[in-house]
């Protein structure tokens, strides 16, 4: 058995599907590509694949990762990549395939932080927005509640920056904690600044991984 890590972009229209659905999309993609994926043991054998980190519905993602175990030891990165590229899957663009030691830690445990770009759909007043951002970062704590649990959003914001685009449009670049039980969500930051979180396009652009 060998383990491979695929780096890919999740593009439109796949931002509108959830993680379970994305899992199925991958299963079928790998099957169409005739990749000899390994299956789990047991009564209901499941293909052995593992996504890096769940992505909220509506988000695009770049440099996303997924691990796939294949049965034959003879498979190489190149063979894997050729198979994937010869098969189409709308909304998934393959960037690279690398081999990973079978015993290396599981992909989700390696993720420390996620990077996001949030593009606001409506034109803004730049100086006003800068002001709101500076107020936000100046706060010691930002208590919010998610699923009836309160938590502090502030320590989850590792970096945040406002990027002017053309014609009064802006984007935020953020680095948010993505450790287990401490995951920052960009739409909460957007709404904390008094902006309609639905009037924005969200792209997770990558991960910061533990060594």
């Amino acid at each position: 058995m060998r383990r491979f890590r695929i780096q890919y972009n999740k593009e439109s229209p796949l931002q509108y599907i959830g993680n379970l659905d994305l899992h199925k999309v991958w299963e079928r993609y790998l099957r169409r590509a005739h990749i000899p994926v390994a299956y789990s043991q047991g009564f209901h054998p499941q293909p052995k694949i593992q996504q890096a980190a769940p992505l909220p519905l509506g988000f695009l993602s770049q440099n996303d990762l997924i691990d796939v175990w294949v049965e034959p030891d003879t498979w190489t990165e190149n063979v894997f990549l050729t198979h994937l590229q010869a098969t189409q899957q709308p909304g998934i663009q393959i960037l690279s395939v690398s081999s990973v030691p079978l015993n290396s830690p599981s992909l989700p445990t390696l993720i420390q932080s996620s990077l996001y770009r949030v593009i606001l759909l409506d034109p803004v007043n730049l100086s006003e927005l800068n002001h709101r951002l500076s107020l936000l970062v100046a706060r010691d704590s930002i208590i919010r509640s998610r699923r009836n649990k309160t938590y502090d959003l502030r320590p989850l914001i590792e970096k945040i920056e406002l990027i002017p685009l053309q014609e009064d449009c802006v984007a935020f670049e953020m680095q948010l904690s993505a450790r287990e039980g401490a995951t920052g969500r960009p739409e909460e930051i957007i709404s904390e600044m008094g902006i309609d979180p639905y009037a924005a396009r969200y792209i997770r652009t990558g991960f910061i991984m533990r060594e």
Partner: protein
Amino acid sequence: MERNTLLERLERILPTVEKPGRYVGGELNQIYKEWNSVKTHVALAFPDIYDIGVPNLGLTILYHILNERPDVLAERVYLPWVDMEAAMRREGLPLYALESKTPVKQFDILGITLPYETLYTNVLNLLDLAGIPLRSSERTINDPLVIAGGHAVFNPEPIAPFFDAIVIGEGEEIILEIINAYQEWKTASSPRVNLLAELAKIEGIYIPSFYEPEYHEDGTIRSIHSLHPNASLQIKKRLVAQLPKPPTRFIVPSIGVVHNRVSVEIMRGCTRGCRFCHAGMVTRPVRERSVDEIVSAVREALDATGFEEVALLSLSSSDYTHILDLVSRVADETSEHYLTISLPSLRIESFSVKLMEKLRGSRQGGFTLAPEAATERMRNIINKPISTRQLLDTAREIYSRGWTNIKLYFMIGHPSETIADVQAIADLCKDVLAEGRKVIGKRATLHAGVSTFVPKPHTPFQWVACDTLDQIEAKQSLLKRELRGPGLKLTWNNPHETLMEAWLSRGDRRLANVIETAWRLGAKFDAWQDQFNFEIWQKAFSIHRLDPSFYTHRQRAEDEIFPWDHIFTGVRKAYLLSEYRASLLEKTQNDCRQGCFACGILPKYADLRRNHPGNHWKCPEVPRRPVKVPMEQIA
């Protein structure tokens, strides 16, 4: 609305609704063509949500046939769920097709499939969301041609005014003839009625506005008048002599839908002749695909989709001539990747257990059998003769071969059914479970799925009354009382939904007003338990001074003219009547594979049969016509 504005508004709406993946298209195997690269644009609609509509095989077939033509594009349309509908109405978004996001109103042709009657209010909602006038009479040259097809339209009358044209029968060939007629009409740029007049000449096309029913005092039909020279008094169903190559490049939805699988129709039609069965009567004759064709379609489709399940579809799998060979070969084809195969409608016999054993993963789902009735008398009446002994033997075998759950389908409300026949259902279920207990003890379970019979047009039971609410409730409460306890599960239909299905099934043209009023009062998604509203329908009936029980609970006279009598399925009314009479005498009829008894198909389609000899079509061969040579040539 401009396409770009629509896309911009969608981007804001989609994150706010449930399952936004329903509304974006772009799935694997979707066919996208540039709008201006083709002459004719067809929107194919399933009048329910994406999740139900995508797996529909009929539309999948038409989608591929149409898109194969270089001068045509076909796109898909489904209804938005209530949350999305509210958002669309709020934002003024029109209903659009998934591939190009073009508003439905801009298409040339809108084809709506109606596999069952409970979709009728959805049709009106669909037209309204698209901004198309509800009634054919109100449409102009700027509206698409609105056509319907599917099993429900064998009685087109309740929805007649809403459609410009209705396709009776199989769509594979006729759809291209419709396109041709449309293209010719469009170049001539003549009035809309000219298009309808041309379409009326095509065999299998019904133009509702060319007909007018006349009623007796008592509300039954006196006659149906043709109002146009091209409108023939009988619309004969279209059928294809040989099933064309099945579609294989199925659209693979990126979200979960009701059936996520490759579906291959192995055979169309059924020769069993169960008297309650609408599909069995209207899809005659039986035509089979060859094992080779099916196996290669399965292979191609799995390659193109990556689906984890294959369904081999037919009304009666056991009757497919080479079923064992087929199942073994499909099982080989899918042996990799733990794929599952589903095989519906198996006969109650041990051979079925042998078939299912060849199918990997089949034990997880439970074993389904459909005895439909529990006493010999009832089974003779409905013409589904199997013995209780055989059922119990088969059940024991199923339990002893590794299945722990058996699902039995029954129907209550068959003609002349008594409470004793219903008690027999409960007793039989317990007997079956007892067989299971003998072999595997407490692990054995039984699920009784008991639906309520709705008399359907074009069947031998089209004359009979549907059970009343009281009758249904009495029967259901007996079952609920009897069928409980460990290992037993019972499911049943909401009796109000049964009644709605009953009046829509055998309705006449006057029901169109009721349907429209019900929709205006808020009825939609009637097939959804949580959306269906019986009171609205009662109100709509009373507004139009019609009595639902006229349609549901009335026993019809043998010589009554039915609202659907001018639609001809190929099976003669006289034959249906003889079958109905046989049911009263509790006499059964053989499977017609064992001997044709002239249901009407063969004489009506004799030329078609003659021109397509061979084993795929299960009616007897029709010999070539002797060539008549004029006497003087012989001399």
